[in-house]
């Protein structure tokens, strides 16, 4: 009657739908916030918001995409402000997606001739490289390559056109490879890296 009263049945339904994706939500939150405490807070906020809006979720539709949309929105609206990251969104949406696509391709192609990454690229190097991406690229890479959402789902989650998803993913992956190649070429990059690897490894040990 007052919109908030829920049955235990509804809650167990929510919990059952949530459980399979909690690890994915947490892993994504960790890449977004780059900090375990913030990641837990972000997931907590996401789950609470999802629970509050659960009666607006259409049963039978994509719960996973729905809750990841809440995750990214919660992150963008709250946590991103604290991280003081510069968004590429305004810039990239101002120009046409196609134009960016080509120009980005050409410049990055020239700077970054293609080569094979090591067969066994270090996991923590990949994670550190993802963390080093700017936020718009990081979000699509997380959703596409870590969570393996489709372009359409990512477009829905981030509220951007599919073309934008594709262009960001293309450029995000390019950057990712570039970072990893540079690491392979110079295996002691401390101090030059945009992320604090010591702190990162400390966190890994704790996890």
């Amino acid at each position, binding site marked *: 009657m007052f919109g908030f009263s829920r049955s235990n049945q509804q809650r167990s339904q929510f919990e059952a739908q949530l459980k399979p994706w909690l690890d994915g939500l947490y892993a994504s939150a960790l890449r977004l916030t780059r900090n375990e405490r913030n990641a837990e807070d972000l997931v*907590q906020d996401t789950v609470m918001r999802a629970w509050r809006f659960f009666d607006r979720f259409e049963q039978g539709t994509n719960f996973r995409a729905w809750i990841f949309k809440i995750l990214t929105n919660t992150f963008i609206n709250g946590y991103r402000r604290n991280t003081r990251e510069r968004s590429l969104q305004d810039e990239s949406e101002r120009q046409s997606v196609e134009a960016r696509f080509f120009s980005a391709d050409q410049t990055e192609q020239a700077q970054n001739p293609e080569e094979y990454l090591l067969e066994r690229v270090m996991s923590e190097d990949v994670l550190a490289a993802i963390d080093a991406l700017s936020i718009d690229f990081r979000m699509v890479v997380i959703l596409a390559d870590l969570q393996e959402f489709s372009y359409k789902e990512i477009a829905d989650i981030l509220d951007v056109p599919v073309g934008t998803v594709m262009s960001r993913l293309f450029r995000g992956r390019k950057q990712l*490879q570039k970072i990893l190649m540079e690491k392979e070429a110079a295996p002691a990059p401390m101090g030059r890296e945009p992320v604090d690897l010591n702190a990162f490894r400390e966190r890994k040990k704790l996890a």
Partner: protein
Amino acid sequence: MTCRDLDTQLTAYLDGELIAEASLSVENHLASCEDCRRRVEIERHNLNAIRQAAKAAAPVAPEHFKARLFENLRRDGDQQRRASMRRFAALAAGVTVALVVGHQSYRSYQRRLYEQDAAFRHARQLPLEITQGNEGVQQWFGGKVDYRVNVPSFPNAKCAGGRLLNVRDKQAAYIRYDGARPMGLFVYGDDGDVDVGAEPAMGNSHGYNVVSWREGDVVYQLVSDLNEDDIRELVPGTNAPTTAPVGSGTPQLDVRPASLKQ
């Protein structure tokens, strides 16, 4: 398709996101272009290497965190349920209080309006339609109003007569008593809209004291310029204007039909 065209579609091609025709046209190009074939192979290898490495290191949500999360969820649900119960209870209580208070004050207000109008009409000393004693007046009202008018007797006051009039659009029987000071008694058939009980309540208006009480569905208002103490002697059990009706219930007024009195 040219090699440049492939650039724009490579990502989608590797992700299997191209529609069938586009995918076919990429494959046609690859079949004929050694460079692009190599590029696609490198890209696919790197993408897989990155994905696998990331997957291998995918963190899982700590158990203590999950436990806390579900506990919070449960508590939040309970809190919301309780909050909604509280909201409902508060709302229901608020509505009840508002209804009771509103109705109460409405009825008090109604009584006040009747007091005012009765006092006003008594002050005008309207001519009587019948000048007789208790019994004659009581008989005269019979059949003229749709409720039974009992004409009470008051000590040191004599029934002078009566008439019909309206008080606030409500038909009233008016009985005048002559004594030390003239008094007027208004008798209404009541629909329950005047807040008065069996116990006489004192009010005042237009320089008159007005005592109201109820006998079943009939409401009496005695208007007089006697002081309150004298009125209390006339109408035993009368309360002061500000005090709530407490104590002994019925007035010791003899309001039985005059015909039944000795």
